[in-house]
């Protein structure tokens, strides 16, 4: 995975961005909006995850889309434009075909957006954001993230040691395996408690439990983050106005209806396109800047 320019922004900016994009993607089923959102999701996923993302989308997302889009008209028969009748006498309508395509497109788009979210919002960013609301929780989270790999490691150490005296959970008949396994789990509990005492000492010794604990993070909300936030706020404002005017909405049943395209709705489309492609734009801009700096030297 290559370094993402967007991921280098403050976690707050990252989080607000994904929250907005995901919400809009689910709310607005207008075909233009859907196309824009899908385009943005795919472009960003490819930029973030490279060839793996392309493979994932072709192998899983495309079949998923086709199956879901095909399934809807077979089970939903609402709509006024009847195309033909199935063998069992149920009608297949244009509206339900279109709605099925739109719903599955939305579904796929959300999944692709989430793959971008996972690449950008790492656990420490998430923890930082929610740690500010609940500092104790964020510490517990950090301790769990420390404890789990440690526990797994120790389990392996004990399992290996037991294997060398013929008492591992992988050796012997199944009753024996179960007995060995239970024995190992019980000693692991002892081990965890035993070591927790010393960790508690280490925490107390460094003043844990004193009032007015603060929460430190390595993230800084700088001017760059402020600029991007302002830019995003502007785009969001346009989009919300668009939603209020009804330009983003579509009605599928009983018949398909969208508002006529106006100058304003084109502005809203443009704003949505900019928003969805924002990480890609930032990436391209930074790549270009980097190249131009390098070539100047």
């Amino acid at each position, binding site marked *: 995975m290559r370094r993402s320019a967007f991921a280098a922004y403050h976690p707050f900016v990252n989080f607000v961005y994904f929250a907005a994009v995901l919400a809009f993607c689910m709310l607005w089923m207008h075909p233009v909006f859907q196309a824009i959102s899908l385009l943005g999701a795919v472009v960003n996923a490819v930029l973030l995850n490279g060839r793996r993302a392309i493979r994932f989308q072709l192998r899983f997302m495309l079949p998923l889309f086709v199956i879901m889009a095909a399934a809807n008209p077979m089970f939903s028969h609402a709509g006024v434009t009847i195309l033909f009748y199935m063998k069992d006498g149920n009608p297949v309508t244009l509206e339900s075909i279109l709605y099925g395509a739109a719903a599955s497109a939305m579904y796929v788009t959300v999944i692709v957006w989430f793959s971008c979210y996972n690449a950008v919002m790492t656990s420490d960013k998430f923890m930082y954001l929610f740690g500010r609301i609940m500092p104790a929780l964020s510490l517990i989270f950090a301790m769990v993230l420390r404890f789990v790999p440690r526990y797994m490691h120790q389990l392996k150490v*004990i399992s290996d040691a037991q294997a060398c*005296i013929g008492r591992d959970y992988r050796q012997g008949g199944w009753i024996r395996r179960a007995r060995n396994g239970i024995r190992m789990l019980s000693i692991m509990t002892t081990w965890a408690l035993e070591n927790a005492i010393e960790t508690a000492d280490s925490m107390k010794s460094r003043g844990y439990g004193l009032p007015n604990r603060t929460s*430190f993070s390595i993230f800084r909300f700088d001017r760059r983050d402020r600029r991007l936030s302002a830019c995003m706020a502007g785009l969001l404002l346009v989009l919300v106005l668009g939603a209020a005017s009804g330009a983003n909405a579509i009605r599928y049943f009983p018949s398909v209806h969208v508002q006529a395209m106006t100058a304003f709705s084109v502005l809203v489309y443009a704003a949505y396109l900019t928003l969805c492609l924002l990480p890609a734009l930032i990436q391209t801009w930074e790549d270009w800047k980097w190249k131009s700096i390098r070539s100047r030297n």
Partner: protein
Amino acid sequence: MEIYTIKELNFAFPGQDKAALANINLTIEEGEFVAICGQSGCGKSTLLRQLKTILTPHGRRSGTVAYRGLPLEEADRRTQAADIGFVLQQPDNGIVTDKVWHELAFGLESLGCDQRTIRLRVAETASFFGIQNWFHKPVSELSGGQKQLLNLASVMAMQPSVLILDEPTSQLDPIAAADFLASVGKINRELGTTVILTEHRLEEALPLADRVIVLDQGTMIVNDSPREASAKLAAMQHAMIAAMPTPVQVYSAVERGGERQVPIPLTVKEGRQWLDRMKGDSVGGLMMESDERDGSVLDPYASNFATGSARRAAIWNSILNRKSDAAKADSAAVAFRDVWFKYEREGPDVIKDLSFEVKKGQFCCIVGGNGTGKSTALSLISGLLQPYRGKVTINGRNPAAARASELFTNGLGVLPQNPQSLFVKKTVGLDLREMLSDTKLTTEHKRAKLDAVIRFAELESLLGKHPYDLSGGEQQRAALAKVLLLEPRILLLDEPTKGLDGFFKAKLGRYLERLNADGVTILLVSHDIEFCARYGQIGAMFFDGAIISSDYVKPFFAGNGFYTTAANRMARHRWPNAVTAEDVIARCSSKSR
């Protein structure tokens, strides 16, 4: 100004009559580096824990501990948290969070510092300790040495005026331990932080210390400068001499009874100078001559006879005599033939073209740095891992294909690096009995076997204890007993001396010698050159996934330049074949007077 003043301190754990600390009187000056030593269970850790209220265990206590002139209890928690830094023994247990940067900030977060302060302090600390390169890493990816350095740094980020360390290097390999102690020395030297350290690896710590305190069964027997303390211990002929640096050991044995003319040597350099002064001349050319008089140059293996017991010598003889027919494949207990191994398909080779044999009845020690593949080689022998090319055989069979019950009963015994990982029961006694639960022996027979093993490992008083409550040395003994119940003919040991003090090491060495004399083949992997030189028969050096050289231990270590014992480094300009402290002592005594 005194930072700690301890008066008439007595302490006993609840329910125990015997005092853990008795009548301790001690003052520690600001900026001092104090090393506290003593055998396991002498009260070192108990004493350290009296110096920070929140870590003090429950028990009966009398006397006073004053911090900066006031009773310690009067210093509030916030002051103590910031001012008194405490680093624990187990690197893993000290670390609380999952990321290096977060761990560095942990103490400052507790103190309620603001972002700006924390950012600065964390940055400073990381730079001072050279952590910036792994600042963003998750803790689970760090090595043991890095973890302990992180513990130290995260305490130092709070800018304490006293730093207390409880055997901080016992779980580290020698290189990491030396680096760690060098960092502690740097803190003391460059920041003026008072350091109070308990340690059993005194070779490195002693030259750093301003003062050495020796505890024996809860009382303070020596409290003096390193040189004076060593001299006093030497005069007392105290058992703790065995834990002192080699030059001190040699000096104290050679100068026994005689009055001291020169300051006692603490480092290898001083030891060499002392030897030269004692011998009157330091001309390198005389080296061979002196060795010839010694007779050892004619027979490089003779030095083994000089120090070993008669029994050891006899085994040695038989091995030497067997040398000619040793080439026969059937006498190999463990054999590697062109073995290659890697953990991942795309990963680097960990074992590269390793060909090596351990003959039946040998006591073989493999030494080498971290990450060279030593432990991996052991896992290949025990069948936990399989080579992707080449062959590993145990008594001519492939361990990975053998059934566990066949391989590990009357065959292969493995003592893992962490002996604790062998225990699964509530008491040592139950743990040992469990080993025999599957055998078809009669009750009396089992009883007899258990008794024999318990007597051998001297576990009589420990049977009722929880295995996790034992000290490091006791755990090692109990683990050895557990493995011995399977009556192994080949014993593999991974870093058996890790965390053991000199006293327990000597004990372990004697056990291994006895087992070896009974015909058990022993293969141990260790960083502990001193131990290998003292007890092993064959030495082999592991480097870059293969064994670079192997030979009988004395010529093996005598031939190495850096990777050899302190005794050899100290005396090799006179006696190139003197490898252990005993060798040097024997040579000094035979010719000095």
